[in-house]
């Protein structure tokens, strides 16, 4: 008995020791900053004042988040982004997943190729796309001119800049989405299709009755992740348009960054990021609720 107890204790200690570096990192770089950001969000800290000079100003920052025109614009822009991004990436993702699920020559090469943008840095990708999307000398507009379309000055035009950002983000994320969906597809047992074939089911009803329901857990994951990522759009915006022109691509995280590090309004930025947290949290909760209604789990 004693031996068993000791072994258990030893294993717990070992687990604790092995976890310690990660846990310490989590506490120091995630948990503590999160907790202190709650306090900061109720203060007027400007990064330059010492702790003793900070005033706690109650809900002022939060009130400003909801009265500040720029905050509204950035939240509105994120929803515009979502509306453009979500349906397209989901449909394209399914399409690419089905295509990549084929048993053809060099399929692994295609799978790798579509994943390359995912592992490329946003900074490098954004800079290249800025060239491609150049209104006068960019490749995109050159290609459009060949089929008789005069392309807009994408990133300098407040009507088109967000469209360009959405398109580039889809291009970059499509690999991730379709690879995950591909895994989901491959997880569906062949038996269902064989049975369906025996019953003489059409391709359409196989898709609706077998593939989509059994893919729904994966789809649910993809949609949730894409939602969260959409709310946090930042890198591409900062580099491709810097939130411009005339604020047309300003997003929530972009505003948080600008307020915190360029305008020295740390308290306000912390309040903004907590509002963002609440938005993401509620959306995820809604998704969880929806999950019970349409996600089908095997077994």
């Amino acid at each position, binding site marked *: 008995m004693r031996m068993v107890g000791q072994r258990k204790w030893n294993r717990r200690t070992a687990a604790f020791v092995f976890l310690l570096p990660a846990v310490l990192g989590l506490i120091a770089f995630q948990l503590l900053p999160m907790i202190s950001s709650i306090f900061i969000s109720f203060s007027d800290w*400007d*990064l*330059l*004042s*010492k702790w003793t000079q900070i005033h706690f100003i109650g809900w002022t920052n939060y009130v400003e988040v909801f009265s500040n025109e720029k905050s509204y614009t950035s939240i509105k822009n994120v929803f515009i982004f979502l509306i453009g991004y979500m349906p397209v990436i989901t449909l394209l993702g399914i399409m690419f997943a089905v295509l990549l699920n084929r048993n053809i020559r060099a399929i692994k090469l295609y799978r790798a190729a579509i994943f390359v943008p995912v592992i490329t840095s946003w900074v490098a990708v954004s800079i290249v796309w800025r060239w491609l999307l*150049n*209104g*006068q*000398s*960019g490749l995109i507009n050159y290609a459009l001119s060949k089929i008789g379309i005069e392309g807009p*000055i*994408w*990133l*300098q*035009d*407040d009507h088109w800049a967000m469209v360009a950002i959405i398109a580039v983000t889809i291009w970059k994320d499509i690999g991730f989405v379709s690879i995950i969906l591909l895994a989901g597809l491959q997880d569906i047992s062949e038996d269902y299709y064989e049975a369906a074939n025996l019953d003489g089911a059409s391709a359409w009803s196989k898709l609706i009755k077998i593939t989509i329901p059994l893919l729904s857990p994966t789809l649910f994951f993809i949609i949730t992740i894409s939602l969260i990522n959409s709310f946090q759009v930042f890198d591409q915006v900062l580099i491709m348009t810097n939130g*411009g*022109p*005339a*604020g047309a691509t300003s997003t929530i995280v972009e505003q948080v960054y*600008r307020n915190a*590090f*360029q*305008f*020295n309004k740390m308290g306000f930025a912390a309040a903004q990021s907590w509002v963002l947290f609440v938005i993401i949290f509620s959306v995820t909760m809604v998704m969880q609720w929806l999950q019970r209604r349409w996600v089908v789990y095997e077994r």
Partner: protein
Amino acid sequence: MLRKSGAILLVAIMIIISACGSNNNNKVESSPSATKSPEPSPSPSPTASESDSPSPSAKPVTIKLLTYTANGQEETLKAMVEAFQAKNQDVTVDYEVVPYADYDTKLTTLLASGSEPDIYEVGYENFRKYAAKDLLLDLSPIIAADTSFNPAIYKKLAYDAFNYNGKQMGVTESFSDVVLYYNKDLFDAKQMKYPDASWTWKEELEAAQKLTDPKAGVWGTYAPIQFYEFYKTIVQNGGGVFDASGNPTVNSPANVEALQWMIDKASKYKVSPALNDDTFNQPDADLNAFLAGKIAMVRFGIWNFGRFKDAPFKWDIALEPGNTQKAHHFFADGLVASKNTKQSDAVWRFLKFFTSDPDSVSKRIAAGWSVPAVADDAVMDAYYKQTPPESKKVVIEALDSLVLPPVGPKPEKWGELQTAVVEQLDKAKLGRITAQKALDNAQKSVEALLSK
């Protein structure tokens, strides 16, 4: 097995601990001030280091320096620091160069954590911000006590730029301004007179109309539409972002007229590239276009002289044409000391040396690192002699009509103020709203910003 290795580990730990302990003891016994000075003190008398501070030359000190203008001039900075250390054996300067794009964020973080360097470099706009936050050391008493120092060695304007509410809180290190560059060959080809100090917008436009050649892709004149260009151009028309008492006047008739002129050059007169020309909105596109001989007249900072040293055409500079009056950008970079520095004596010696000592200034000039802000023409002669451009004295003449960045009554809002105005300039530039409407909006935003 396990037990054995555990025992070895335990012994090892004990040895390390005891070693540390005895080390500590030794230190404490030998000299109580050991933690303060890094060198083992030869005379371990406790009174010398603790109570009365000894003569400053006796105790070696290290001061930290953070700079951004030295980016690309690291060797020059090193030489200047070494020259200083040679004359001040007791001081070691520990410097760090950070690119401009990251400088503000880095410095702000250092300040936020209370670990800022003893000396750091700031531009005029940020100087106001930091001075207002009471982060800088007031040098006035040190200057008053230093009999060997005379502020007249600096250009007065540049020196006074680092005076905040009557307190000298920094020393100007170098300055720069923006002037009109022109391509002589393009003027010669049309047998036209070169721009001179008498030119106004009218003469500039007339010349630009003659020089513009759409077929060859040559533009008569160019200036970007952005905040810095805006605040200077409105002064050239007698306007300004603030009136004398610090109230915003963004939508004054003079300002609206000036913005209209900036837009008209491209959209009405077509002597400048189209405003939505993407290529001209890329970084350095205007510099490259001038270098390719595609722009006849353009407003550039004097820090670009080096770029056109080997241009395949003749070029020179002139004062910028204004409308009702002349106005030129003025940018001053200076060194400030942290309020928390413990080495104010060494810091002051370094500030003085770095910004005005002939030994340091000559190195700066030889390397073409901005213009030192010293008043002595003998020192400046070396700078004037470097050509092109031939009319190098224009750099100094421009200072007679300088415009400081309109930081306004609340320096801490400077970043937000810029962003608010730029957003409206963008809308006017895109043709979504009129110049009048854009500046009305900007006026409202600036008023709201300052009322908070």
